């Protein structure tokens, strides 16, 4: 297997700056295809910043700047000719707080395909909406009220709607930024089960505050910590089982055993 077959994304010496402040210091991270990679660490250590650098969401912050490379399909996402809009169509994102658009459930799903220049019939769109909702394990909950507002759903359902919305544009990678932090335990469990199914077809990177979640649901785990200059760094990265049962670094051990954080 070549590197590109095995990995979807490779961060190479990636540093992120906000103005003159260095928020992330030289991260190297290989994200394996069809696996779930968890980014864990205490608050403020830059997990979300790293995640948002993978689909150029940080472009929306005027002062943000990325150095180094993120390789996707043998191309550096930060090369000058790369279009951030195209990147985000292939690397989707699910946010911390469910953020359905104030539109109907149907239109929430159809939004992505429509802006991607989707040219199909009404029935094909109906099929796509149903397919996406089924994949996000939401179809049975909403099949009778597709015209209802997405905001009428419960928090857990809203988050699955946001996942369905991301799936509808058929990305390769789904980035999840603490997708369960606003949800109750049962909804959280549903999202985790969903992630297990989705990794058959997608590569998932998830930021989580919840170490149990990382241990339960992920294949690989990267542990982040701030260095002396308050820039986030990777302390340890490896298969989740190894990292949790046999951490190589003392700081990882302290964190996962709950001594700080």
């Amino acid at each position, binding site marked *: 297997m070549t590197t590109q077959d095995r990995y979807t994304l490779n961060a190479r010496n990636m540093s992120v700056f906000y103005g003159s402040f260095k928020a992330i210091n030289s991260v190297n991270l290989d994200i394996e295809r069809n696996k779930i990679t968890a980014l864990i660490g205490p608050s403020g250590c830059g997990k979300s910043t790293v995640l948002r650098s993978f689909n150029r969401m940080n472009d*929306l912050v005027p002062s943000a700047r990325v150095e180094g490379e993120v390789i996707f399909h043998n191309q550096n996402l930060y090369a000058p000719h790369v279009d951030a809009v*195209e990147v*985000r169509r292939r690397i989707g994102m*699910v946010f911390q707080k469910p*953020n359905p658009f*104030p539109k109907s459930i149907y239109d929430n799903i159809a*939004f*992505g395909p429509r802006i991607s220049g989707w040219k199909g019939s009404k029935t094909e769109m109906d099929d796509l909406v149903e397919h996406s909702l089924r994949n996000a394990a939401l179809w049975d909950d909403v099949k009778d009220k597709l015209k209802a507002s997405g905001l009428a759903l419960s928090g857990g359902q809203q988050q699955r709607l946001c996942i369905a*919305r991301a799936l509808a*544009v058929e990305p390769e990678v789904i980035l999840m930024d603490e997708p369960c932090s606003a949800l109750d335990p049962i909804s959280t469990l549903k999202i985790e089960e969903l992630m297990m199914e989705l990794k058959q077809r997608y590569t998932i990177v998830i930021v989580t505050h919840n170490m149990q979640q990382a241990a339960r649901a992920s294949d690989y785990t990267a542990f982040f910590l701030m260095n002396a200059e308050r820039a986030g760094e990777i302390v340890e990265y490896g298969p989740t089982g190894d990292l949790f049962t046999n951490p190589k670094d003392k700081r990882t051990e302290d964190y996962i055993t709950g001594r700080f954080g």
Partner: protein
Amino acid sequence: MDDKASAGVSMDSRVAGVRRETAETTLNLRKKSRPGENVIQGFLLFCGVLSMFTTIGIVLVLGNESLHFFTNDNVSITEFLTGTQWSPQIGQFGILPLLLATLVTSFIAMLVALPLGLGAAIYLSEYASPRARKILKPVLEVLAGVPTIVYGYFALTFMTPLLQSIFGKDTVNIYNMAAAGLVMGIMILPLVCSMSEDALSAVPRSLREGAYGLGATRLETATKIVVPAGLSGIIAAFVVAISRAVGETMIVAVAAGAGPNFTLNPFASAETMTGHIARISGGDLSYDSIDYNSIFAIGMLLFLLTLVLNMGSRRLVRRFREVYE
């Protein structure tokens, strides 16, 4: 087990009782009189009630004088509402020429103010760099601070000659509704812009991120997500703008013409309701004459017009509201 528990309870309550006794001797929880609070509260109530009574007073005066007008033998309310000629000297009181001129100038003003104002608002909230905002917003505010009489002369001495040089002196009257309407639109533009921008800025950032995360461009995010989400505020801005245009006086009094004219031609001179009131009340009218009363009837109609607009807008806002929290 039960005995133990009850013993525990009685023990606790005894301890609490001791505490309460000591507390009563040291802690004073009696109501104090706070005269300052009452004075301020009274003053705030006065402020609220004052504006209410002012409105009631205006309605009473308008209503009373209009009643005098409509009870006059020479006037019928159907003639007032359907007549196409307004010449009080010969007893013709048809409001339509004045109403039509108001509608034509307001319509022209809206053609300018709504698209440009909304466009500027979208630019400011979705595209502008902090530096561009810092320059543009004060400039717009200056535009809002120009006295309307200055706009009036701007219409008369700049806009009208401009229109004449484009369409010809024969087509464009020296006093015309088009120049007044266009300049009125420029006057209202900052209002539409700043109210719409407030509505757009209130749309949560998370919605924009959601759209960008699906691969939406800036334009798609602005037009398909942010504008629909802020639509209720934008509609409110539009309605306030229309009310403003309908009620605007100085520009139309200076630039649109003096003398009622029942026409849809924007290049013709015509007098609006407000312009007519301003001109008539400037002359010496004898109190309680029918001319005098007629301007109150016009005022009443203006008042009702804006009232209906405002009430309609509340409906629209409720209907289009997209709640995002």
